[in-house]
């Protein structure tokens, strides 16, 4: 399962910069980042090398951070590719809380990150539908 780092941030000028600097200083390399925000606060989600160490580094620096399990899917780079994935999940009653996408350096496929209620079952459902689930090793170095 992909271990995503989630960070709680107040909407304060420079707070996101401080967070990324903390990770940079600790030599944590980020692979993907997504910011969800409300008027008062935001949640930053990121895929990075050594996610557990990243959480510790952030907590030591005074940030609220935790690990969330998500799944990553290689979505075929063609029209309807994402719809196929979502339909496979939807037909099994799996609810997607949020999703975001980034393109791997190879450029062959987009990688989509999904947060679903039941990541283990989602994985089984997607494999059965012939959709490629991306293993952690190919995205980041786990710890």
């Amino acid at each position: 399962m992909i271990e995503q780092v989630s960070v709680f941030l107040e909407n304060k000028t420079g707070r996101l910069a401080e967070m990324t600097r903390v990770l940079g200083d600790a030599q944590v390399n980020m692979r993907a980042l997504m910011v969800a925000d409300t008027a008062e606060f935001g949640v930053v989600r990121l895929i990075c090398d050594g996610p557990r160490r990243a959480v510790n580094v952030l907590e030591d620096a005074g940030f609220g951070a935790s690990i969330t399990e998500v799944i990553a899917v290689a979505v075929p780079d063609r029209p309807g590719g994402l719809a196929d994935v979502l339909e496979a999940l939807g037909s099994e009653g799996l609810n997607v809380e949020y999703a975001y996408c980034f393109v791997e350096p190879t450029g062959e496929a987009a990688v989509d990150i999904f947060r679903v209620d039941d990541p283990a079952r989602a994985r089984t459902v997607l494999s059965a539908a012939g959709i490629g689930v991306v293993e952690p090793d190919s995205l980041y170095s786990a710890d």
Partner: protein
Amino acid sequence: MFQPDFEAMPRTDLEALQLERLGTTLERVYERVPTYRAKFDEAGSHPASVRSLADLANVPFTVKDDLRSAYPYGMFAAPMRDIVRVHSSSGTTGQVTVVGYTKGDIERWGDLMARTLASAGATADDIVQISYGYGLFTGGLGVHYGSERLGAATVPISGGNTKRQIQVMKDFGVTVLAATPSYALLLAETALEMGIDPRDLPLRAGVFGAEPWSENMRTQLEEALGILAIDIYGLSEVLGPGVASECECKDGLHVNEDHFIIEIIDPATLLPVPDGEMGEVVFTTITKEGIPVIRYRTRDISRIIPGTCPCGRTFRRMQRVSGRTDDMLIIRGVNVFPSQIEQVLTGIPGVAPHYQVVLTKRGSLDHVEVHVEVGPDFAFDEIKTLEHLRRRVSAEIASALAISIEVKLVEPKSIQRSEGKAKRVLDLRSEGSE
């Protein structure tokens, strides 16, 4: 019990002792303190007219301003050659007040604090770490003399330097901690950050006071530190710590009634209220020589808990102080005690019991924003769970205070921790509207 002859004295004997000591004290202040003589004379009253404890209700009150205008020694009832110690209030709410102690006062204070520590189960076998500030503040030295009187090994570390406090607690094998409750919570957090679980230490009891705290905070301190946590009460104008203390039953604080007479009054009518009703706490000292106070209005809000306590002490119990008439905020005409907010927060998983109230004006209306820390163990991932948390906190505070408020979730540990009395209210209402 440290002094069972007094602490478990039959009520009739106790009341006879109180009346005798009250008479001596009233005569002493009438003879020696011009302020008291003037108060009696203006009221057309005299110490000799107080023939029963009930007659005390006719004696004029003393307020903080009396002590302020007598700065520094004007209310002392002993010559300076008999005074062996002075302490003073912090002066955060105005001109500082100074209190003086005779040798006898210091002796009695030691006894009373020894009673307090003993009611937390402490004995001569214990090692007591005193993390109250030493100095002009009565907390540090007050507990110190009690701890030595008890015969405990006393560690006079004072406040501050939190990591060193943890190290000392661990290395010295400390068994009893004396601190403000907010500082005790900071000690618990800091220990965990240092990789030390306080529950693994020999620490087994804590005496916490000098600021209002809640029943939920007790649970939290007891769990985090693995101890019995009791509430202690005192104020420098009356003595310092040692005026009242909870026993192991943790159901109200026994007032040391052989040294202090407690009354609860309605702060509006100034008339005594029956036992059980909330009001302002008023104390009369009946053994102090340096600076006795007569019907001193503490501005603390509490009540007498009716009935007797299973511990065997006959002293009546006051409920933990639920706020101060000074701290009381009047928001859109409603009386609000900040301690009510803490009470709510400690009951909600996912938030820390640290908060700050920010009061501003929006047009002519008071606007209340409560900043609340998300707990360090909260799963931060989903906006909807955070929003749900924010709405829950907001609804529960609004329901407890009977006013609508806005809650802002802030990052863990971002609210400043206090190393003394917690500063939790930022009142910007006089600084114009937003």
